[in-house]
Each structure stands twice: as C-alpha cells, then as structure tokens.
C-alpha cells in the first residue's frame, strides 16, 4: 500500500498552501513556481530560489532556505519527478498525482445529494467549492502523457459551473487523457446539463453511473433518496441523447444481488447504448462499516446471480467487467471478465493468499478488507491452460 497523505515537519516561511510538481533536478527559474524540489539523501541541492516549496526525505541534509519546506517520512520516498503534491503549513503532504500510476483520481467535492448505504467516501455538508480553483491549478501541473484521470466525489455535478470548467480544462490541457467521472447521474435529469456536457465534446470522457436495481424501491433504498432511481434513469437518457459515453456501475451486496440478473437484462433493453457495465465487490470502508449487517454477504454466496448477470450482458454484446473480486471467489468461467480493478495505493493481499500462483492475475483486496472478506479465500486450482501465463506474470511481478 502506498500512502497518499502523510504528515511531516514544516519549516521555513510557511504561511499558505503550496502546490508543486516534484522535481529532483534543477529547473529553469521561470518554471520553478510550478515545482516542489525533492531533496533525496546524498544528492546535491541546487539554488532553490523561486520553487513553490521543498520536501526533504529522511537522511537528506535540510537546505538553508526561506522557502516553505517540509521534512517528510520514508513513506514518501516513492515520490518522483512529475508527481504533484500539496504542502500545507501544518506539515501535511497530500500526493495529488502520481505520474507512474494509472489510478489518479481528483476528489472534486465531498458534498453529495445521495447517502448510499455503502458509501466509501461519506459526504460532508459544507460548501467546498474552494476546491475548484485548486483542481484547475492541479490540472496545469499534471503530465500531458497521463493515460487516465478519475474525477470522484461526492457528487461532482453539485459544483455546477465548476464541474464544467474542470471538464473543459481537461479537454484543453489533457486531450489525450481519458477522463472518468463518477457521478450518480441524478442531476442530468435536467437536459440542459446533459447538453452542456455533450457540447464540450471531450474526446475521451466516460461517466460512471451507479444503478443498483431494475426497480425504484431497491435503488432508492440503497442510495437513501426517494425518487433517485427515476432521476438517474432520465439522466441516462438525457446523456445518451447528447452522446456522452456511459458506464453503469453496480456494487454487489446483500441489498443488490437478488435482482442482479434482471438488472442486466434491464440495462440491455433500456440502456443498450452504455459502453461498459462494471459489477463491483463491496469496499469495507466508510458507511459500509456502519451498515454492515444490512450489506454483508459472502461473495461466494451470490455467484449464481453474478454469473447469470455477467453472461446476460456478455452474450448480448455489452462490455462487462467484474471488479474487486478475488479469483478464488468466482467460478473459472468468469475469470475472463475479472479485472485487477483496485487502485494500487489501496490494494492488498491477505495471509490466505500466501503461495497462490493466481495472484498476478487477481484483483486482490481493498486494504479495508483486512477487517472482513470472504470466508473462502484459498489458492484456487489453476487450470492447465493458464499455468504458463501465470508463471510468466509471476516472474514479471517478482522482477517488478
């Protein structure tokens, strides 16, 4: 697991937050305001005039400077050139972008108009639209070669104009970066918002929108808002009308697994235009812990429904993926649909995985699963067909 937030010791003239792109080599004076200089042990420290800030790793000499500087812990030694960090006077360092990772997500807002039973990012009521200028600034610093960028929340559409300015700026500065936005889609019941998003014509945007059942009562209960299902459905139609690519996301738990096969058929008959359907395992984080009694089902116990839904979608020609499920919990015929979906920084394996040769192909767990996971985790029997592939993957991983 990788720490994205860490607390160090702030030094120097540190009065306001500093955002900077990590560099370990000197940069042109007129570009320094965009950069945070990272001092590694036994590396020479150049003239630091003009940098946004300085980070000092353990064992490195603290340079003499008036700049905002933070002595950070070993857990941030992974930082490298091109990463983007936010430094605060309190000593907190937030890693907002990692150049080498495919799992970079911007938290756009913590406000939300839903209250999902299993929310992993519990909403906060305060207006946090101050994030928008920060995000727009962050976009200036993200590497233009970035493959994929996520925008999550909260509900990003609550930012109003701010949301659209983020998408527009992504299109302008990062046109080759796939933009993946997590939204509940409800506010797109207003066709003018769908139209406005469609007219930005971002070259590679996808909206990930949750749909938890094919009937309103179940969906509304899961998201804790009466009428949410109808709003999302209308939102999906409005978005499709304006050509915005859509992914449907279904989190599987005790409230959603029963109608999963029917939901798959419902998606095909009503929203055949969706680009992708993700069937996702539960993350043991946030509200899930509060509502665990209503949510928990061992994934092994819903495999008939998961299998039926996956086959229903696949045979109809829809792209379907299974996220966050360990290979030993799903039947082998579903392995081709299982993805290594968990962001690298929160991805773990558990002691039961020791010696499992399927690991290089397995999604593993959210770090939070250490608390609760399937009772059936055990190295699966490897089909002969996959033995060579797994061996080569295993070797790569070991080199890794």
């Amino acid at each position, binding site marked *: 697991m990788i720490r994205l937030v860490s607390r160090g010791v702030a030094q120097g003239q540190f009065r306001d937050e500093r955002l900077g792109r990590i560099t370990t080599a000197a940069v042109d004076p007129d570009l320094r305001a965009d950069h945070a200089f990272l001092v590694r042990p036994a590396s020479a420290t150049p003239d630091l005039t003009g940098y946004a800030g300085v980070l000092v790793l353990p064992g490195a000499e603290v340079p003499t400077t008036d700049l905002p500087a933070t002595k950070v812990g070993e857990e941030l030694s992974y930082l490298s050139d091109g990463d983007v960090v936010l430094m605060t006077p309190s000593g907190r360092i937030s890693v907002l972008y990692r150049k080498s990772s495919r799992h970079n997500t911007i938290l756009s807002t913590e406000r939300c108009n839903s209250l999902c039973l299993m929310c992993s990012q519990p909403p906060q009521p305060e207006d946090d639209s101050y994030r928008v200028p920060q995000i727009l600034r962050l976009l200036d610093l993200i590497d233009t070669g970035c493959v994929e960028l996520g925008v999550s929340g909260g509900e990003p559409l609550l930012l109003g104009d701010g949301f659209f300015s983020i998408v527009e700026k992504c299109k302008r500065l990062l046109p080759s970066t796939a933009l993946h936005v997590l939204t509940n889609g409800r506010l797109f019941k207003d066709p003018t918002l769908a139209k406005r998003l469609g007219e930005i014509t971002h070259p590679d945007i996808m909206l990930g929108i949750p749909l938890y059942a094919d009937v309103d009562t179940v969906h509304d209960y899961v998201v804790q808002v009466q009428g949410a299902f109808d709003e999302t459905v209308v939102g999906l139609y409005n978005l499709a009308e304006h050509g915005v690519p859509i992914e449907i996301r279904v989190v599987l738990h005790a409230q959603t697994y029963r109608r999963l096969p029917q939901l798959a058929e419902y998606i095909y*008959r*009503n929203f055949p235009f969706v680009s992708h359907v993700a069937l996702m395992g539960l993350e043991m984080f946030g509200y899930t812990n509060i509502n665990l009694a209503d949510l928990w089902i061992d994934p092994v116990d819903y495999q008939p429904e998961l299998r039926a839904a996956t086959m229903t979608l696949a045979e*109809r020609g829809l792209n379907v993926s299974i996220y966050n499920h360990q290979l030993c919990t799903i039947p082998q015929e579903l392995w081709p649909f299982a993805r290594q979906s968990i962001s690298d920084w929160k991805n773990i394996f558990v002691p039961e995985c020791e010696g499992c040769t399927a690991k290089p192909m397995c999604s593993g767990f959210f770090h939070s699963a250490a608390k609760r996971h399937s009772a059936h985790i055990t190295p699966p029997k490897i089909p002969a*067909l996959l033995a060579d592939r797994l061996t080569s993957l295993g070797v790569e991983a070991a080199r890794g």
Partner: protein
Amino acid sequence: MTKPIFREPSHFEERRRPYTFLPFRYLDLAGQKLLVNEVGEHLLVPDSTFEAFVSKKLQPDAVAYGDLKAKQMLLDGPPDVPIRMLATKYRTKRSFLSGFTRLHIFVVSLRCEHSCHYCQVSRVSTDKSRYDMTVETANRSLDLVFRSPAPEISIEFQGGEPFLNFDLIRHVVEEAERRIVVEPRQVQFVITTNLALVTDEILEFCRQHKILISTSLDGPASIHNTNRPRPGNDSHELTVRGIERARSILGYDQVSALMTTTKLTLDRPEEVVDEYVRLGFDHIVLRPLSPYGFAVKTKLKTGYDTDAYLRFYERTLAYVIEMNRGGRFFVEGFSQLLLTKILTPFATGYVDLQSPAGAGISAAVYNYDGDVYVSDEARMLAEMGDKTFRLGSVHSDTYEAMFGGELLRTLVESSCVESLPGCSDCALQTWCGSDPVENYAKQGNIIGHRPTSDFCHRNMSIIKHLLRLYHEGDDQLRHIFWSWVNNRPVAELVPGLEAIA
C-alpha cells in the same frame, strides 16, 4: 465520522400505490403464460402468478412483481418515467419507419436462361426489346428513387437474370452515383443473380462500385439442378463457380446465397445445410415457396402445406444448432431475424415482416416496362393478370400520386397488426407483421383471415418454437442464439479461459 440517519426500506415504498396495468398481451406457451409488453419485452410466468397478477393480488415482495414492474407491465407509482421509457423503446423499435422507402428493386430484364419450377415471372426469350428495361425507363425510375427521403437507400437489381441486361445495370449505377453528388445519400447496390452468365469484367465493375452479389443456391447439385433447370443441366456447377469467382474478385463476404424450399428439399435439409457449409457460407436463410406465379401453377409438383414446411424448418434448425454446438458458427437467417425482434430493443430492416407492411413504404419495385409495384409479390400477381397493387407507371404518374395515393394509404391502414382482426390481441404481435398482398392473393382481400392464414400459422409457429427452445434450452443454446443475434461467434461474446491465457 458522525453517523447519519439511514432509513428503512419501507420508507422508500411510501410512493407505492395499488398497482394498475400498462399494455401487455399474453398467450399460453409451454405450460406457462407468455406476457409481452408494447415494445416486445416478454416474460414467462406460471399460470397461478398470472392469475394473481391480473386479479391484482400479486404481492410486492414477489419476484414476479418486480419482473413485471421492470418490464413496465405493472405500474405502482408515478407513470411519467415508465411511460417515457416505453416511448423511447417504442421509437427505437419503430425506427425502420423513418426515412420511408429505402429498398428500390429494379427488374432490369424478365428474360432468363433458367426455367425454375418455382419461378414466378421469368421468360426464356431472346426478344430483348420486349422484356428488358430501357434507359429511359431506368432514368424515370431513378427520378422516383431520389424523391424518397431515405438517407440510406438500397438499389437491388432483379430479373429474370439481371446480367442479361448488364449494360443497363452499369448505366443505373453510374447515373445514381452521379446523382448522389448533388443529392447526398448513401446508396448500396445489390444484384440478385444466378451467376451463370457472370464474367470477370462484370465482377470487376461490381468491385469498383462495391456492389453486393446475392445468388440462389438450393443445395447440392441433385437438388439444385432439379429445382433450377437450364439447358445443359449445369446450374449448380455454374453457380458454385460464380460464387468462387465473385468471392475472389469482390471479397469473401460480398457474396451471399438464398435457398428456396421445394418438396424435394423437405426430406433432405441436412444435405442443403452441408452444401452451404462446404461452400464456406456461415449463413443460410430458410425460405418457403412463395404463393405466386409459376409456383402456384406448379403447386402439385413443387408445393407442400405449411405443416410440412414447419416440420422441415424445425428439423433444419435442430441440425444447424447441433452444428453450432460442435463449434461451427453457422446462422439460420430467419431465426436470426425473429430472435433479433424478440430479444433485442432494436428495429430490424426486413421489409417482409413488419407493421405496417413494407409494401411501398419500405420497398418498391420498378418493373422492366416502367410499372411500379408495392412489392415483388405484387409484380408477380400482375404477371398473372391482376394489377391491384400497381402504384402507377414511371412514364405517366407522379411520385405524389403513387407514393402518396389511395392505394398506398389503404395498404398502410390495412396492414397494422395493432388493428388487424386476429392480430390486435395476439401476444406475438410486436415481433410479427402483415402481408396484405399475400392476404389478397390467397384469401381474397387485403385484411385476410388469420385462423386460415398460412402466413399467420407459419410465423406464429416459428416464433413459439424459438421461444420454447430459448427458455427450455441450456446456456450453450442461449449463447448460440445470441451469437446469431450479434452475428459473432460465441467465443467473441463469452470468451473462455484461452482469452486470458
């Protein structure tokens, strides 16, 4: 983290009202009730569930309650969103109607060197002036084609044997391509030919203009040559040679074949399918004899009743399914069409099974002499002396008079399954269609009489057969049917472990 207040499921059921019905139709199938909604979504439920549903006693916690609600047959809350969803799906299913006439059939010559028993119209003649379409007639026909508002049109050349008047085909293709420069639209050309007379020069022209070839192949030589006599009794050999030649010049998938089922075929379906497989096709369309022309005259020789055809159809389908189970991707086209209608939210472009009927509004036939008919069958009827379904002539009538006239209006009005007696309450309605021309030819009026209609008997039987197979079959059978709907091998839709190895 402050703990928010989470509400119980019951809170989200407060909007629920005693349920009412949205439109659906039903019939008995396989010991259960088949329910079909207004946009062709269906559900099979036990009779007892159906009884509870229609007597408004179905409980909200029943699985069927959710199923019926999700398919918008049961309404227990505000109607706005379910109605909007149905409307969207209805528009999608009926999108074949937008654009109006898109298939335009040019009968460029009535002459043919074959003398097939079942052929409706062709003449063995060398009198070119009498049975060939002229350039003037073709130009006037094109004037009408280009009046059609459809953004994508097909021009299909038929005969007789169209290659006997290849110069005219060349003219029509080049003229149409000239016109689309100033009147932009997409045009796809198709030539329906027996391929006996095809030359490399003709095929080179087809390649340059991306013309598709549709040929007739009735099975192995012993069946094909009996059905399709020509001097020298070499039709099969010439067709096979023509298919290979056309594939090598045009590309493999530019050539398709159609078969006609005769009495001779009924007991030998496996041989017919095997011949298609041997020749590298992955598609066959089982077609019954059409009840016109020489086919009616020679009924005793080639004909059979609908039940005999249905036995043949089911036996052939079973054989084709087994072949797919063995790993060979091979599609039966009529089942593919019906499964697409039944299982998908999409419209199909098949003009012979739709409501209102495709006659005139989806397809039109320009005969060699300039007469315009609503369908190929209408033209055949005319060749037998009954010009009821003649829209007019390219030489004397306007587009408005023909395509906006009384005949076409009557045909549209009289071919909506929603209002036809016997169709209006049929559960299979949304997947079916009507054929006023066949009704007229066989039953004496365009409305027809469903209980004695071969069209109805055949289509209902095949649809029910496919539904039974789909719902009683195993996973593999469903995969196969979906691979037909998607026109892709099963392994591309449902990859096995080899996909990740």
